[in-house]
C-alpha cells in the first residue's frame, strides 16, 4: 500500500528563509526577499523524498508567536492549530530558524511544542553562521529541546540534503504521534519564561564569536544616518525613475521598429482587406505598442528586486516612519507602497503585515495612487510625443524629469489622501506602534533576481497576449464595423461603432479636453491601463488608413494639443483604470464598500485634476 501523503508546514520567525526552503524543496519560484513579512499567503507545494515518500509542504507567513496579531500571522496560527477550514493539520512542523539569530525562533519553538504537533528545528542560513564563526552543538540542542535538529542552506544546491534525509527517517520510523493541543495564548509571565528557557538553551549549545557583521554596521552608518539616509533614499528613487526613461530607450526603439517592420511586412504581403487590417492594425499596432514597454518594466522591477534582496526595504521603512506618520501612515506601509510602484496588487496584499486595521485600510486605499508599471506605457507614449528630449542643467533628461514629476504627483496625492482620511474619518486615532526587525544586508543573488525579472516579464507578456489582445480584438472590431458606404469621403473609422460610442461619451469628457478617440480608448482601458495605449494605436492606425505606418507617438503629436496631452497624463495619475486592483481591494477589505469608495474617489480626483490641468494649459496658450 502506498504511504499516505506526508503534510509538512514551514513555520518560523519572519525572514528566516522559509520560502527559500520551500522553493528549494519543491522547485517553485515563490517570492523571496530580504525583509520580514514577504510571504503573506499560504502556499502549498509537493515533492518526493530521496526514498520516494510523497510530501506536501505549505509555506506560511513568518511570525514571532502564535497569537496572530495581523492577518498574515493569523494564517499561520490557523494552519498550525488546525483551525483553517478544509485544511489538514500538518503531520510535521518544520520550525525554520535563521542560525545567526536563534533567540526568537527557539522561543517560538518552545511555544509551538505546546500545540502537540511533531516538530523539527531547521537551522537555516547555516552558511552565514559558519562564516561568522558561530558554532552550534546540534546533538545537544536536540536533546535540550526534545525535537530533532538539522542544519540547512536553502539557497545552495544540496543544502537541504540533511532535511530530506531526516524526513525519510521520520516517515520510515514510528511516526511521532501528535500530542494533545495545550496551546493557549501565552501570558506575559509564560512568554518571559519561554524566552529565558530559550536563552538558557542557546547559552549551553551555541558559541557566538566576537565577530559581528561589520558590513551591515558600516552601510547602516550611512544609510540610516538621520539626514544622509534620507538623501540616499531620495537619490535611489530619483535614479530609479530616470533609469526607467533613459536606459530603456535604445531597446524600446529596437522593439518598436521591429514591430513597425513586421506591420509593414504584413501590409505588403497580404492583399488589402479585413485580414490585413486585423493583423496590422489590430494585432501588431495594438499589442505591439504595449510590448514595446517591456524594457522599462524590466528596469523598474530590477531596481525594486535589488533593493528587496539587498535588505534595504526595512531601512527605508525605518527612515520614513515618522515622516509618513505626519500624513497618517504607518512605517510598515512603506514597503507595500514601494512595491506598488511595480504593481498595486502585490502591494495591497503586502499590507497584511500591518496589524492595525485602520492603518491597513488607509494603505490599501492609497496604494493604487502609486505609479504602477502599467502606467509607464501611457506616460512614456505621451511624454515622448510632447516633451522634447532636452537636457536640463546639463545632465538631467527633461523627459525623465517629467516622468519623475508624475511619480512625485502620485506620491504627494497619496499622502494628501491619507492625511484627509486621518483627518475626517479616523480622527480618534492613536498611532499604532512600529516594530520591525532590520535584517543584515545580503548580497543580492543574481539567480533569484533573474528569476524575479523573468517571472514578471512573463506575466507582462501573458497579459499582453490575453487581456490586452482580447481588448484589441474588440476595439479593432468596433473600429472597423460597420464598414463605410462605398465612395465615402471621410476616414472609414468615422462610420464605425467605435466612433458612434466615442462620440456619445465625448461630451462628458470634452471639459477635460479629451476627444472621442480618447474616450474610445479609456473604456477598454478600465480593464488594464496599458490597453489605452494599444487602443489609441489601433484607432489611429485604422483612421490613418494605408499611410498609418508611422509610429503612434508621432501621430498623437499632430492630432492632440499639448493641453490635451497634459490632461491625459493628469487623468492617469489618478484614474482607477484597473479591474484586477479593484477586485483585490474587495477581497482584502472583505467589502464592496471600500472597493466602491476607491473607485469613486479616484475617478473624482482624475476628473478634477484633468479639468484643472486642461484649463490652466489652455489659458497659458497650450490649447
Amino acid at each position: 500500500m502506498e504511504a499516505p501523503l506526508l503534510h509538512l508546514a514551514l513555520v518560523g520567525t519572519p525572514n528566516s528563509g522559509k520560502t527559500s526552503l520551500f522553493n528549494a524543496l519543491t522547485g517553485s519560484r515563490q517570492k523571496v526577499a530580504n525583509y520580514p513579512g514577504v510571504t503573506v499567503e499560504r502556499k502549498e507545494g509537493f515533492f518526493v523524498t530521496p526514498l520516494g515518500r510523497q510530501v506536501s509542504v505549505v509555506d506560511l507567513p513568518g511570525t514571532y508567536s502564535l497569537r496572530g496579531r495581523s492577518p498574515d500571522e493569523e494564517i499561520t496560527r490557523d494552519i498550525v492549530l488546525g483551525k483553517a477550514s478544509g485544511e489538514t493539520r500538518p503531520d510535521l512542523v518544520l520550525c525554520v530558524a535563521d542560525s545567526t539569530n536563534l533567540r526568537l525562533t527557539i522561543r517560538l519553538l518552545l511555544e509551538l511544542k505546546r500545540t502537540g504537533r511533531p516538530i523539527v528545528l531547521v537551522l537555516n542560513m547555516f552558511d552565514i553562521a559558519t562564516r561568522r564563526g558561530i558554532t552550534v552543538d546540534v546533538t545537544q540542542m536536540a536533546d535540550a529541546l526534545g525535537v530533532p535538529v538539522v542544519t540547512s542552506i536553502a539557497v545552495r544546491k544540496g543544502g537541504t540534503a540533511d532535511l530530506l534525509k531526516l524526513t525519510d527517517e521520520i516517515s520510515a520510523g514510528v511516526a511521532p504521534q501528535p500530542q494533545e493541543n495545550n496551546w493557549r495564548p501565552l501570558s506575559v509571565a509564560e512568554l518571559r519564561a519561554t524566552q529565558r528557557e530559550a536563552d538558557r538553551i542557546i547559552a549551553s549549545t551555541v558559541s557566538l564569536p566576537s565577530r559581528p557583521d561589520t558590513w551591515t554596521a558600516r552601510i547602516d552608518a550611512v544609510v540610516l544616518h538621520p539626514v544622509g539616509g534620507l538623501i540616499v533614499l531620495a537619490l535611489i528613487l530619483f535614479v530609479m525613475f530616470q533609469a526607467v526613461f533613459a536606459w530603456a530607450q535604445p531597446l524600446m526603439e529596437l522593439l518598436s521598429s521591429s514591430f513597425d517592420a513586421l506591420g509593414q511586412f504584413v501590409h505588403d504581403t497580404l492583399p488589402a482587406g479585413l485580414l490585413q487590417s486585423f493583423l496590422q492594425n489590430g494585432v501588431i499596432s495594438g499589442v505591439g505598442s504595449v510590448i514595446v514597454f517591456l524594457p522599462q518594466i524590466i528596469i523598474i522591477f530590477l531596481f525594486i528586486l535589488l533593493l528587496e534582496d539587498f535588505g534595504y526595504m526595512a531601512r527605508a521603512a525605518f527612515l520614513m516612519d515618522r515622516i509618513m506618520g505626519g500624513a497618517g501612515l504607518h512605517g510598515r506601509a512603506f514597503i507595500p507602497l514601494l512595491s506598488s510602484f511595480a504593481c498595486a496588487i502585490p502591494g495591497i496584499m503586502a499590507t497584511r503585515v500591518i496589524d492595525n486595521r485602520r492603518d491597513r485600510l488607509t494603505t490599501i486605499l492609497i496604494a493604487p495612487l502609486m505609479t504602477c508599471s502599467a502606467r509607464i506605457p501611457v506616460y512614456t507614449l505621451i511624454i515622448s510625443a510632447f516633451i522634447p528630449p532636452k537636457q536640463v542643467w546639463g545632465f538631467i533628461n527633461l523627459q525623465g524629469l517629467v516622468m519623475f514629476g508624475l511619480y512625485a504627483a502620485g506620491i504627494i496625492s497619496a499622502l494628501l489622501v491619507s492625511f484627509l482620511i486621518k483627518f475626517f474619518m479616523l480622527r480618534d486615532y492613536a498611532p499604532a506602534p512600529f516594530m520591525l526587525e532590520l535584517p543584515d544586508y545580503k548580497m543580492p543573488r543574481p539567480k533569484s533576481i533573474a528569476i524575479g525579472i523573468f517571472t514578471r516579464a512573463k506575466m507582462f507578456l501573458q497579459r499582453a497576449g490575453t487581456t490586452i489582445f482580447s481588448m484589441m480584438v474588440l476595439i479593432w472590431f468596433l473600429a472597423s464595423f460597420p464598414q463605410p458606404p462605398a465612395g465615402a469621403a471621410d476616414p472609414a473609422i468615422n462610420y464605425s461603432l467605435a466612433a458612434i460610442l466615442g462620440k456619445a461619451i465625448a461630451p462628458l469628457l470634452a471639459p477635460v479636453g479629451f476627444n472621442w478617440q480618447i474616450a474610445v480608448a479609456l473604456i477598454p482601458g478600465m480593464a488594464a491601463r496599458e490597453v489605452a495605449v494599444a487602443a489609441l494605436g489601433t484607432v489611429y492606425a485604422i483612421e490613418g488608413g494605408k499611410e498609418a505606418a508611422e509610429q503612434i507617438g508621432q501621430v498623437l503629436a499632430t492630432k492632440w494639443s499639448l493641453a490635451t496631452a497634459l490632461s491625459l497624463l493628469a487623468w492617469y495619475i489618478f484614474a482607477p483604470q484597473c479591474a484586477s486592483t479593484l477586485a483585490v481591494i474587495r477581497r482584502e477589505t472583505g467589502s464592496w464598500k471600500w472597493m466602491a469608495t476607491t473607485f469613486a474617489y479616484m475617478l473624482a480626483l482624475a476628473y478634477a485634476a484633468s479639468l484643472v490641468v486642461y484649463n490652466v494649459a489652455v489659458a497659458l496658450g497650450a490649447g
Partner: protein
Amino acid sequence: MTDDKTTLPQTSADTPSGSPLGLAERGYSGVIQHLSAGGAGSALSDVELESRLIELGFVEGAKVEILHEGIVGRDPIAVRVDNVTIAVRRREAMAIIVA
C-alpha cells in the same frame, strides 16, 4: 508582568531602578532591568505591548544599544538587542527600563 509605577523620566541612568530606553541617546548601551508598559502611553494595552516586546527579545538581562535614530523627534530608534537589530518608536521604548 511587573507592576512598578512608571519610571519617571528624570530618574538618572545609574540608579538601581534604571531609566527608560525611550529617553536614551544614540550610542547608549546598557542592560534591560525590567519592562514597565504602564507608563509608555502606547496605543497597545499594557499586556499586549509587553508581550510584543518580549517576543522581539526585549527581556530582562538582554544587552541593548541604540545604533541609529530617525530625523523627526530622533524617532524611531534602531536598537541592537543581543545580535538582532530592531526598530521601535521611542514611545514604545519607554516601556523598556535599562541601566
